[in-house]
């Protein structure tokens, strides 16, 4: 059984690594910045070991409650803010996912970021990012969770804007923070509303997560109370997990270094949103309105984002829309009550999406560009990147027997059997998204690795080559090894952790049952149907981008308006930035108030001042300086007062 101190160490190892890099290495020993990378790897590696220990301990306890350690932190009246650790199956799994993916990313980064002048700063942020995510999943208190939630947002801000001298990077970082903060506003309101309803918790501490669970399961939260709390929390999750309509920041987040994207998209930032809904799942279950909202938003986002992925030319943007779409899958799973499958999909997705991102980084390392129109033919030059990217693509497309197949199948099966209209709707949305997913990822795959090489950075007018520019060869071993490790995960993680038949060492449906969730039986018909749909998507991509039987150009021309809407991302960036922020808030409301402040409020004050000065001037005429005159006035005054006194008393 794991000790409390060991669990805290999972958090403090990367946090200490951050502190050492930020306070010692970066300011004083920047010549030895290389040490920052090794320190981070050691710290995250240690966290991974301890996380596996934590997972084993939770598993060993079998059914039942979570491990809980709580300490006083701050108390003001009824606001009793504790901090602590809540270690349950969900936390344990998230810990392993976050630290494992982070470790791979850190190793990979030693190659990818080699020679960058901000090397030490990069690893400082990466350590803090990992620590924040660990703190988020460990939190036993909703305010504590919010603290780390925001720190995760901060780190993504710092890392997306890592190359802050690039205006696009600085703008993307700002956008990520502000758009997610709109969601955080909802989360904050949910916290306030929970505290507001503290009397209905019957003596429980309304800020403790376990107590919120108890209150929700005991039915202490009335219908609308649970609904509002759940919707507020979901608003936060929508921001972090880039669900429609708060998804616009994620594609722009590509401006950060590619390993950062891998971490953000697989294990930290965006996973936090799904984790948040899962963490407060009992509250969601207490409100069918909230559940249906989650399902519909997730299902819609799955399809909506996938549709934009169809037409992007930047390989990282394809992957970004893919992430949004896959997060929609997870959300819709949670929304139809499929808690286990939702987290299962998060688990498998972490492997193959980190793999795909790091593969795209490897490609970029060789070609100097992310634009697939200038790639092609990389299969021969980069065999390892090619092979692992293929595995990742097949896993994402959901083909038997890779990891993505098993988790996606469970999600679809649960949506199918949900029984209500919502389940039907999101099932068909998801199935359509499956087709698009396999199409766009194999479109990317064929454009990148097959055919002839089309020049890379030398041909691309818009790129600023990272590293050495065009040199078509396999990336260094410290970048290829993590790809291999993740590829193994992308193959095995599905069947191995959640087998459909008893494997002996792993019992049937181990993963979902470990999470305390019900697992649907394997449905061969559904699995076959979804595989056919996925295969059809791959086939179409093959026809258009490999054998060129179908002309992509002709198709995009004949679908002109649709293609334009998709490649312009449904004009949502324009709607938000131009009409919402620039013309609405900045050019409209703020401008109007600024005018009011200067032309009305301040003018009023100065006018009053002007009157005061001029009245003063008028009165000054009376101050003649003649003592006789003063004497007369004073005498009259005294007589008047005396007169009044005599008359009235």
């Amino acid at each position, binding site marked *: 059984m794991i000790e409390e101190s060991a669990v805290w160490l999972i958090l403090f190892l990367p946090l200490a690594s951050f502190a050492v890099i930020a306070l010692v290495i970066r300011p004083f020993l920047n010549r030895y910045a290389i040490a920052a990378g090794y320190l981070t790897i050691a710290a995250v590696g240690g966290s991974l070991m301890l996380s596996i220990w934590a997972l084993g301990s939770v598993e060993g306890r079998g059914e039942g409650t979570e491990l809980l350690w709580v300490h006083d932190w701050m108390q003001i009246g009824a606001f009793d803010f504790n901090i602590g650790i809540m270690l349950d199956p969900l936390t344990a799994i998230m810990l392993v996912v976050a630290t494992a993916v982070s470790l791979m990313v850190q190793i990979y980064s030693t190659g990818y970021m080699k020679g960058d002048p901000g090397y030490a700063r990069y690893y400082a942020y990466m350590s803090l990012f990992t620590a924040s995510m660990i703190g988020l999943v460990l939190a036993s208190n909703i305010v504590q969770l919010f*603290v780390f939630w925001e720190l995760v947002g*901060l780190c993504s801000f710092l890392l997306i804007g890592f190359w802050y*001298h690039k205006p696009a990077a600085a703008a993307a*970082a*700002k956008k990520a923070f502000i758009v997610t903060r709109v969601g955080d506003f909802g989360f904050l309101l949910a916290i*306030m509303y929970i505290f*507001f309803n503290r009397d209905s918790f019957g003596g429980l501490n309304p800020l403790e997560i376990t107590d919120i669970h108890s209150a929700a399961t005991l039915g202490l939260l009335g219908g609308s109370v649970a609904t509002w709390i759940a919707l507020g929390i979901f608003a936060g999750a929508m921001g972090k997990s880039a669900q429609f309509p708060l998804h616009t920041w994620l594609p722009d987040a590509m401006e950060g270094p590619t390993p950062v994207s891998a971490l953000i998209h697989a294990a930290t930032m965006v996973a936090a949103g799904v984790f948040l809904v899962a963490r407060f799942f009992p509250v969601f279950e207490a409100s069918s309105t909230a559940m249906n909202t989650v399902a519909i938003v997730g299902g819609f986002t799955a399809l909506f984002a996938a549709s934009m992925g169809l037409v992007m030319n930047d390989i990282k943007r394809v992957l970004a829309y893919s992430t949004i779409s896959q997060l929609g899958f997870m959300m819709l799973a949670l929304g139809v009550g499929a808690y286990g499958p939702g987290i299962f999909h998060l688990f498998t997705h972490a492997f193959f999406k980190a793999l795909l991102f790091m593969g795209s980084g490897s490609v970029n390392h060789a070609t100097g560009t992310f634009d697939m129109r200038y790639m092609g033919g990389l299969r021969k030059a980069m065999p390892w990147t090619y092979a692992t990217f293929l595995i990742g693509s097949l896993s994402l497309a959901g083909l038997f027997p890779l990891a993505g197949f098993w988790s996606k199948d469970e999600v679809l099966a649960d949506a199918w059997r949900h029984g209500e209209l919502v389940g039907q709707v999101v099932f068909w949305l998801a199935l359509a998204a499956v087709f698009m997913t396999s199409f766009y990822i194999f479109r990317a795959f064929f454009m990148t690795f097959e055919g002839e090489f089309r020049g890379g950075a030398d041909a691309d007018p818009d790129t600023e080559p990272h590293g050495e520019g065009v040199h078509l060869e396999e990336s260094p071993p410290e970048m290829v090894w993590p790809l291999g490790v993740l590829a193994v995960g992308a193959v095995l993680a599905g069947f191995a952790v959640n087998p459909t038949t008893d494997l002996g060492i792993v019992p049937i449906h181990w993963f979902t049952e470990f999470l305390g969730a019900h697992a649907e039986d394997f449905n061969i018909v559904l699995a076959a149907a979804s595989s056919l749909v996925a295969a059809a998507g791959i086939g179409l991509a093959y026809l258009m981008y490999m054998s060129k039987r179908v002309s992509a150009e002709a198709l995009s021309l004949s679908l002109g308006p649709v293609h334009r809407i998709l490649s312009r991302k449904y004009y949502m960036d324009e709607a938000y930035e131009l009409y919402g922020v620039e013309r609405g808030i900045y050019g409209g409301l703020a401008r109007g*108030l600024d005018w009011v402040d200067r032309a009305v*409020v301040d003018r009023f004050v100065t006018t009053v*001042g002007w009157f005061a000065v001029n009245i003063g001037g008028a009165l000054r005429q009376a101050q003649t300086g003649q003592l006789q005159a003063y004497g007369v006035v004073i005498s009259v005054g005294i007589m008047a007062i005396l007169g009044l006194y005599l008359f009235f008393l």
Partner: protein
Amino acid sequence: MEITGFGGLLTAVVFLPLAGAIIIALFVRGDRNVRVFAGALTLAELALSIIVFVQFDTGTPGYQLVDKFEDWIPVDTFPVQYFLAVDGLSAPMVLLTGLLGMVSVFASWNVRDRVREYFVWLLILQTAVMGVFTALDFFMFFLFWELELVPMFFLISIWGSGRKEYSAMKFLIFTILGGAFMLVGILALFFSTDTFDMTAMPAAIQTAGLVMPVGLIFALFFLAFAIKLPIWPLHTWLPDAHTDAPTAVSVMLAGVLLKMGGYGMIRISAGMFPEVISDVAWLIVTAGVINVLYGALVTLRQTDLKRLIAFSSVSHMGFVLIGVSSVVGVGGVVSPVGLTGASLQMFTHGTITGLLFLLVGYMYEKAHTRYIADLGGLATRMPILASALVIAGLASLGLPGTSGFVSEITVFLGTFEVWSWPTALAAFGIVLTAGYILWLLQRTLFGPQKERFADIGDATFLEAVPIAALVIAVLAVGIYPAFISDVFTAGVEPITQSIQQIARAGP
């Protein structure tokens, strides 16, 4: 309960800067000597204010560290006392003033014009503010309140920039106007209760026959505090004064002088007029929401760094108002959370905005411009200043782990149960704040490095000292807030309890 004694500690804290000012004026010659002497003195003053804070015992109710002479002015009909003491509300404010007093002296190291005179005024200012936070006799309170104006006027109008005379005069007129109303209020209370003792006043007001309607007396005081805080639409002196004041004076002005308004609202408006403040709480929360949102929106439009931060102060002071408005309570129960949040907000805003003004001042000295459009790409050349500005900015937008978050969430949790919709509306301020802060960082620090700033330098060691002190204060409160929130809670609990008793006893 009679409060007596004379420990001398608070007397030292209040008058040490004044003594230093006199010594500088009379004996210290040479600009460098003046700076070093003033620096050493404010370090000693900071040490004393830390001692005050540490000595304050949250377990003991009421006022502590009392310095009191009952017959200071020995006229029977005019019972003015010499009475200094701290409670949980004022002890952290003493610490804040000590900290920012030190910062402001170090921030003035590059003042080259009439140095001796400058430091004399700066030190007198510190005595005045310390006096306001510790005086418990209305007569003394008023003296200190007005004393603060004199150095401020000279500091802005002589060492300021831009339209400095205009701004100094505007500041003076606004504040004097408020002070005049407050004087009438103090006299009205004195003629009603025959005492200037602020500790005896709450009970005395309840029993004595008042010479004026209680609502009017409340309004006289409240107007003074509303100008000082400031509340919209009485805020227009603030952006002008801040923009044209020298760096150190902006630090003091934003850091502690605004807090005199909030302090007065809690100590006097809420502590002495519980019924009235409950009646007008709706007005206070409305003003708070306007301050937060209006302030944030106007901030978005600002093009001058100092003016931008000045308007952000208007927005952040709205949170103080919102916290104060929670005193009306709900269902006869008044929770101390909102008032503690308001006090915390004063403290944290003092450190955060003090830091912001300090950094902007340094950047102005180096870049010779405060116009945001001219700046950009500074992070590469000035990593220390840039890192500190990022930390201060993030604290200002209420990022957890910094002090800004602690005070904002406390205000929100404390007030949401009383004023749900207004609080929710004001909470949207966190999005707007993120907008203007991050946009500010983007435009000044990020982006490609500019030709004209190719040789610009980073903070020197001496400049880094006050920066480091404030960064530590911002992070310490953010990470372990209990050491300061416990003190504030001890300070505001008697106030919330008395309001609650009156609410229960009421009709």
